[in-house]
């Protein structure tokens, strides 16, 4: 599988999977835009529990999503799970904001691969304009899921799996020198895990290892750090 980072949303790069700035991926062959783990309504969940977290992160995430759909002219948007955070945060406002964003890319089909957080939200209203909610999506050569079934280790022989759920991050440190920690894309032979798209989400450290490919995923760029992370790990 040819995975390439790109610094623009142009689709001219010769690749099967393009990693885009803004924590999303694109499958050029089918014009499919992929995002994972938006966790909409997380701030509202906190507020309903008496923890004052301001509004704003969901709105800016939705605006970013809308821009990505337009810039890539995606025919399809596949959300790889955890679109919503929790039942207590799914207020009318949260749903309405998503629905309003959705109407601004009517021509694009939206598919939700249901994540563990979505399952806890008992009812996702039809007014949101999500064409289909599925457990997994099997479209050889790709297989879309929320949770990579058994971590990063077990390869699916027939298909290349793309997932979310892990919220991967990477920390790279030069002994006695600089240190950087960012969200990342992580891939192995037949699996790619996307970084969390939502900005009010935590992360899980990924340890570099042979056979693991890593890209730092920022709003303003994607950079391959596979070799850098390995060198840094060996140097410490």
């Amino acid at each position, binding site marked *: 599988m040819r995975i390439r980072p790109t610094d623009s949303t142009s689709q001219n790069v010769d690749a099967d999977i393009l990693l885009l700035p803004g924590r999303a991926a694109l499958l050029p062959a089918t014009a499919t835009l992929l995002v994972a783990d938006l966790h909409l309504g*997380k*701030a*509202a*969940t*906190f*507020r*309903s*529990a*008496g*923890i*004052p*977290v*301001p*509004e*704003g*992160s969901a709105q*800016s995430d939705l605006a970013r999503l809308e821009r990505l759909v337009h810039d890539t002219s995606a025919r399809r948007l596949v959300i790889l799970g955890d679109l919503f*955070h*929790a039942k*207590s945060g799914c*207020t009318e*406002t949260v749903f309405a904001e998503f629905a309003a964003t959705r109407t601004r890319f009517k021509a694009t089909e939206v598919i939700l691969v249901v994540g563990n957080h979505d399952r806890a939200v008992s009812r996702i209203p039809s007014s949101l304009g999500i064409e289909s909610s599925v457990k997994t999506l099997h479209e050889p050569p790709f297989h879309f899921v929320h949770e990579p079934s058994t971590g990063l280790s077990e390869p699916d022989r027939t298909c290349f799996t793309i997932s979310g759920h892990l919220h991967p991050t990477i920390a*790279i440190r*030069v002994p*006695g*020198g*600089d*240190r*950087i920690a*960012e969200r990342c894309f992580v891939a192995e032979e037949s699996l790619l895990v996307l970084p969390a798209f939502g*900005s*009010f*989400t*935590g992360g899980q450290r990924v340890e570099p290892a042979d056979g693991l490919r890593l890209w*730092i995923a*920022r709003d303003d*760029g994607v*950079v391959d*750090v596979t*070799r*850098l992370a390995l*060198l*840094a790990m*060996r*140097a410490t």
Partner: protein
Amino acid sequence: MMPGPAGTTDAFRRWFADRGWEPFSFQEQVWRAVAANASGVLHAPTGTGKTLAAWLGAIARSADLDAVNEKPLAGLRVVWVTPLKALAADTVRALEEPLAKPNPVVRGWSIGVRTGDTSVADRRRLRANWPTALVTTPESLSILLSLDDSHEIFGSLDTVIVDEWHELLSTKRGVQTELALERLRSLRPSLVTWGLSATLANLDDAVAALVGPTRAADARLVSALIPRRLEIETLIPEPMERFPWAGHMGMRLLPQVVAAIDRASTTLVFTNTRSQAERWYDAIGAARPEWKKTIALHHGSVDRELRTKAEEGLRRGKMKCVVATSSLDLGVDFGPIEQVLQIGSPKGIARLLQRAGRSGHAPGAVGRLICVPTHALELIECAAARGSVAAGVVEARRPLVNALDCLAQHIVTVACSGGFRADDLLAEVRRTRAFADLDDASWHWALDFAARGGPALAAYPNYAKIVERFGRWYIASPAIARRHRMGIGTIAGDATVEVKWLRGGRLGTVEESFVSRLNEGDRFLFAGRPLVLFRFDGLTAWVKRSRTTAALQVPRWNGGRMPLSTLLSSAVLDLVGNATQPGAGRTIPREVAAVLPLLEIQSRWSRLPNRNTLLVERWEGRDGHHLFVFPFEGRLVHEGLASLIAWRIARSKPATLTLACNDWGFELSGRDAIIADERTWRRLLSPADLLEDLLACLNSTEMARRHFREIARVAGLVSGAQKSDRQTQASAGLIFDVLAEHDAGNMLLAQARREVLEQQFEFCRLRDALEALAAKEIRIVETPRISPLAFPIWAEFVQSRLTTKDWLTRITDMARELEQAATVSGRA
């Protein structure tokens, strides 16, 4: 002044006489003051009878009031606040002692405990039937004040006593205590408040914080002028040549330490960190296997049961030696301790006195303390501390002011307990020293924070912790009250993991970051035992005993590293500066004489810093360029100075610098040469634009973001480690980012920056330091090798980084450095 009925005081005189004792005059002074309804602070060295003075005074006051009322009041009469829940049991024991013998005055008195460790059943029992005296912590007192019947619980209270007030004074818990005391005085205007404190340089502040500035003039300050005889000496390594220049363990002195323990009946060995305690406990045990049953380890991460066993052993005189950290700094009498060893520099005069006071803990006995340096230069710190004790000086502890996170927490606490009128609570809060200068804007912000999450214009829909009804503020729901009470009790700290035997039994807790680095089968030292990690399941590290004791790792716990106090720093600089020319009539302390050869190397390769010159050393090593600067202002100020100067250097030219510091100086290093002549240094060290520059460099070092953790917890932005509440788990760092982006005016962010400036960097001390440096001559020296003074800083772990490069450049540079290093090591 109306002294209490003679019967009461006479009863206590008899109580003393029964023991063959005579009350000290300070004890009688306190009794008379309490009887006259006066509040105040009693300060005295440890082990002189402060507890009895306050406790018997309080009992007498209640008895006098009952005599006037002609019938005893039911319910709580005395609240005794102790800073540590671990001390509660000891405190109860000490308070029960005078109640043991039949005495008409103490008839009907009972003592209860309410701390974070009190079980739900015991709490229920307490609520059904309050004792006459309650021992509690600041957190538990706040929880009691949040109960809706708090005005009944405390409605019969006569006296509140805050033990070890100096410990709480300069902390957030001190602010919490100030607010709680003021609340108690609102519920019970006749309340008398006493604080027990060790000696401080600013006892006036201690009084004002305890009773509130407006009442400070009427409060008493009672001093126990009991000369406590202390003998302090230092172990001098021989031969000195083989003693290391840096390091924290100082194992070279093990034979002398073991010999010193051997000579005494009971020794307390104090270390500065838990890792040190583990290593020393292990080494002493290995050196003298026959002491196996009579030595113990005591630090904050060791399981409570194991600690209690060690304390019991001390009390019953069964221990040869206990190795401890600050976990044994406080607390009531442990019984017969003949001597105290201090491993590593004591870092402060008050701390040295406190620890020395642990020995010879009976009236009239001599306290003995031996300093054990861990590296050569610490000998000078030991000498400085010894000299300062002899000169009778001691540090100050500054109480905190305007901590809005504590205020936000308190507002919700009071709302839980039946509500408040905003004006009344503001007036009450302003009676504390901590909020005497609280401005209207900050008050309204804090009220808004509880009511709406933030100012009305910021977006916090569907949020309310407190709601207003008919001019009073109430808690929004019982669920929020419940969560708030849980939040009051949680202690800030890093995620910890329980260590348990595979076959059952707990050993204590370690930082998760340590365990997650270990693999199954890795060996480490913990709670004084060699262990093998069998399995780590995310919550518990399951361990077995390791059969070999070779190559054991020792956990590194965060925090606990005290900076050298200003007083000691300045004493150290004098000793260093005058070491080679002591001047007429001055003698060199033994410790300094021992390190003279090292100081001579320093002056050969570089020079000795002194009061009139600032020494800057430049050294080029294989790994890049290093600058060492020696202001002698203590670790915290050096952190601030290093960040400031790194930022000022990197402002003109994008760079990444790494920063390290110790109590004597700091180091900046980078790949590129940092060229700076004296004129540039003057500019780098200028006090002009200090605040602006520091705020700017705070952002580039992420320090405010890191510091936000504690604020977020106190203000209720992050919940404690309640695993059930997964959906509202977020790191303080993440919340900081969301606030910074979507509610930049949030005052808790401003507080985080202010606290880093004031506490982390000790802003005032930093500004004073820069102003002092402006008057000094700057000497820049190129050193051929790393100098003896620079070496300990160089050997420190890198403490932070500062960068003004963009992220892509950083990644490119990191890659280049690592590729180069890989090529070099590949060739070697």
